[in-house]
């Protein structure tokens, strides 16, 4: 068996597409793989791909994947030396990372201390500001809970109320009308308690039509830190990313250098190890630190496409103690990549999550087109997990080429069984705004007209109805039952 340093076996503590993606690299490195799975995921592709699969249980399916003790027990029993947490679930849980290390295993990610520092959004902000890096004007509740509402009010509209322990865009509220400030704060607090077990808040000046730009960083255990350039993730809906791309069409080379340098600076000061992403808000020529994610991100494939690196491979190498082995000048961006997140949701019905069986799953293929999916034909998609089904990543010679590839790939993407956002994505990247690169986090919200599919043309409708009629047994049988003579006479009347 091959080994990477002391790592011979890796436990993938995740599910769906990311589990499959991580397993791919683990296998390509010749390492042994173990995966945990909940019964609902028993027929997922990742489970069949791993060398060993161990079932986990919990009061809810999500709870099972959040059960650190159970995951550790599986790691010990299966003889894994390292645990890759993927994203979400336990990936930014400092307690879990600590327990893994205490157990003598390797947590593939930064140190528990780093996770703690950067995981608490308020602490992270304070840390970054103290180092002299740009942050948006804000009011932190913790500093003085009684005056929080007042200080928030003093920031002036528009402002954003955010949960301290939050992430992934959940529990955030924009306030434009200060008359609603108090009730919004109350609501955000109770949501923070409900989703993250922590009701603390902070308020931040909100940049109108902000762009979300993030920088991928990699740090080894030997103090070497590089950046892998930026990703633009401005197309969001309810603070969830929908489309990401690299490079960002908004940045001049000069701005790019500045933002990436700031990101590296932050990572260095934090003594960051393994892969991480520094997120910024950019608007009106200025950019502010938003937060740092101490894990691999959903959209990391975009960076891989333009830089040619395998980030999971780098994560494993770093976790095994290897030095990066290359410097910043070895990293360059080639071409343009776009990622589109395919969700089980119905854009026509306010993007409500959809469920059903995957009846057909045919992904587009070709040069510069890749699909990461954790689903297979026959799988039952339920409301138990996050509705993201797959990621479509395209890589073109330039942005327009990438957009054309993306449009073609979306048209060829056949996922049948329940509504998805595939058609919506195609309409989205066809808009003038996207084509010209004039995107911002509120764009999708401003275009409710593209949510629902356009009414089909008469010709299209005719074709669809023809297919439906010919595919429906009782309709075909009814037509066949009519004797030939009467068919030939048609609707004759005397």
């Amino acid at each position, binding site marked *: 068996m091959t080994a990477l340093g002391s790592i011979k076996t890796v436990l993938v503590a995740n599910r769906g597409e990311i589990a499959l993606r991580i397993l791919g690299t683990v296998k390509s490195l010749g390492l042994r793989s173990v995966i945990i799975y909940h019964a609902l995921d028993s027929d997922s592709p990742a489970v069949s791909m791993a060398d060993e699969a161990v079932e986990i249980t919990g009061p809810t399916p999500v709870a099972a994947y959040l059960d650190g003790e159970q995951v550790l027990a599986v790691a010990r029993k299966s003889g894994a030396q390292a645990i890759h947490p993927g994203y979400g679930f336990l990936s930014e849980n400092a307690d879990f990372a600590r327990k893994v290390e205490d157990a003598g295993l390797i947590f593939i990610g930064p140190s528990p201390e780093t996770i703690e520092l950067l995981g608490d959004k308020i602490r992270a902000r304070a840390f970054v500001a103290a180092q002299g890096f740009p942050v948006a004007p804000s009011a932190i509740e913790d500093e003085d809970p009684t005056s929080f509402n007042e200080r928030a009010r003093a920031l002036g509209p528009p402002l954003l109320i955010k949960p301290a322990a939050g992430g992934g865009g959940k529990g955030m509220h924009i306030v434009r009308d200060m008359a609603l400030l108090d009730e919004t704060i109350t609501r955000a607090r109770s949501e923070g308690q409900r989703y993250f077990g922590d009701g603390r808040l902070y308020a931040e000046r909100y940049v109108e039509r902000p762009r979300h730009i993030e920088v991928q960083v990699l740090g080894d255990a030997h103090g070497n830190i590089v950046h892998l350039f930026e990703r633009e993730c401005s197309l969001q809906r309810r603070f969830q990313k929908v489309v990401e791309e690299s490079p960002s069409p908004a940045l001049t080379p000069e701005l790019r250098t500045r933002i990436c340098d700031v990101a590296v600076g932050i990572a260095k000061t934090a003594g960051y190890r393994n892969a991480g992403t520094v997120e910024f808000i950019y608007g009106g020529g200025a950019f502010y630190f938003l937060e740092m994610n101490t894990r691999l991100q959903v959209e990391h494939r975009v960076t891989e496409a333009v830089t040619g690196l395998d980030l999971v491979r780098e994560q494993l190498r770093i976790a095994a103690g290897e030095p990066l082995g290359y410097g910043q000048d070895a990293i360059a961006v080639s071409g343009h990549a776009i990622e589109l997140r395919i969700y089980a949701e119905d854009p026509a019905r306010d993007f409500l999550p959809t469920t059903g069986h995957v009846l057909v799953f045919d992904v587009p293929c070709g040069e510069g087109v890749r699909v990461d999916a954790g689903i297979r034909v026959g799988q039952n998609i339920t409301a138990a997990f996050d509705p993201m089904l797959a990621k479509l990543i395209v890589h073109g010679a330039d942005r327009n080429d990438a957009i054309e590839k993306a449009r073609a790939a979306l048209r060829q993407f056949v996922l049948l069984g329940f509504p998805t956002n595939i058609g919506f994505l195609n309409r989205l990247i066809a808009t003038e705004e996207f084509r010209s690169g004039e995107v911002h986090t509120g764009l999708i919200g401003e275009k409710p007209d593209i949510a629902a599919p356009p009414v089909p043309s008469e010709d299209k409708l005719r074709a669809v109805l023809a297919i439906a009629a010919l595919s429906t047994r009782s309709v075909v049988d*009814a037509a*066949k*039952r*009519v*004797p030939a*003579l*009467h*068919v*030939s*006479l*048609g*609707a*004759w*009347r*005397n």
Partner: protein
Amino acid sequence: MRRLESRINTRSQEFQTNSVHHRGLAAELKERQQKARHDRPQRDTDRLARQNKLLARARLEHLLDPGTPFLEFSSLAANMAYNGEVPGAGQITGIGIVSGREVVVHADDASVKGGAWYPLSVKKIVRALDIAIENRLPVVHLCDSAGGFLPLQAEFFADRYYAGRIFRNQSILSKMGVPQMALVMGHCTAGGAYVPALSDYNVIVRGTGAIFLGGPPLVKAATGEEVTVEDLGGAEMHTSVSGTADYPASSELHAIAIAREIVERFERRQKTVIDWAEPEAPLYDPQELYGIIPKDQRTSFDMREIIARIVDGSRFHEYQPDFGTSLVCGYARVHGYQVGILANNGVLFSDSALKGTHFIQLCDKNRTPLVFLQNITGFMVGREYERRGITKDGAKMIMAVSGASVPKFTINCNGSFGAGTYGMSGRAFDPRFLFSWPQSQISVMGAEQAANVLTDIKLRQLAREGRTLADDEIAAIREPVLADYRRQSSAYYATSEVWDDGVLDPVDTRNALGIAISASLNAPIESPNYGVFRM
């Protein structure tokens, strides 16, 4: 099979005159049918709309398979009766396709006198059920009637083929294993209640459908009991308490959807197989039919020209072409089905009568349906002909027509008089279907002839009394007789009295025959069997 060669010059003056005339008659037919089928007093259509009822024709269109033909019978029944106030006798009957099955449809038209049954309504319904029995066709009844039209009860109640015959026919259909279903979309009162009760399946519409032997007013008069329509015989009660009705429906469309599903369940028996080949359109344009029959009903013409514009490929295999030439006999196909055609080219003589008798037997043995194209004034009369046995030869022909087991189809193309009607399979001889063309006439003798005979009798009577009449006085006797005869021998009178199954535009004959033949094959063809031919 050889094609007929037309000898008509379609550019001749005569052809043009005939064509204009007959197109006019066809247009008149279409217009009269349109009125009879659709013109209704506003207050009747308003009332139906208020009651949330569809018009009978709308129900029919929903019931039938879309894109399929409907051969309607006697659209102009009662057009010369009841002051013209009961178009179609308030009934719609015909053969259509429901869920792929050929069925007879019988629908009460509630937009005509509330769907009340007049004597001719009863006759039309009985006729439709006779067609169902003879051709073993399932029946769908669309019931919505105010009941019998009491002022005329003497003409529809007591006799053998009056209203009771409807229920007897229903029972016989059931006995024969031919399924029936009824949709109760309005009231089924008194006798009418038996229509759904005697049907194998029935569906009743909530709110409008009701079945009862006596309605609330009658019940109150009879026993003093006060009860609502719903409570007495509505959908709820009959589907859940009495079991008289099978399926409750929340609306007429729901009822029709259920009905179609029921008909889909009917057994599809093997139809009788007769000789059939891939159909071919006539070589000659059927539109030319308008120009062939002379404008004057008494002028003769060659029936082969008619045949050529009705049959497949205009192909005709003539039998005994040189013998009995006043009767054209031969084989042809209509929509693929092989048929034996008998058509009149003049009066019937002994030779033509014998030829016809022989040909009928040939077709019977051959399992070939018979098509009679009538244009017959009668058998030849005179001393010479009687000595040669014209009477017994005519009798032989009648014996053959009566005994033939193959289905018979009769079209009165121009005229059907006297014994000629009998020999050429008139109504009394049970052709499965009988249709008239607009110009055709039917009576015991031609109007002119009848007028002459009656005037002659009158003159001789007066002469015995020593009186003579002036020309104008003769005319005064003759004209009313002539007018009366003309009126009562017209196709419109015949169809009004339901002596036929409808007046057809000549151009529609081919399709009507095709549908009719196809329908007739749902019944078996018995073995040939005749009475005694007086030799």
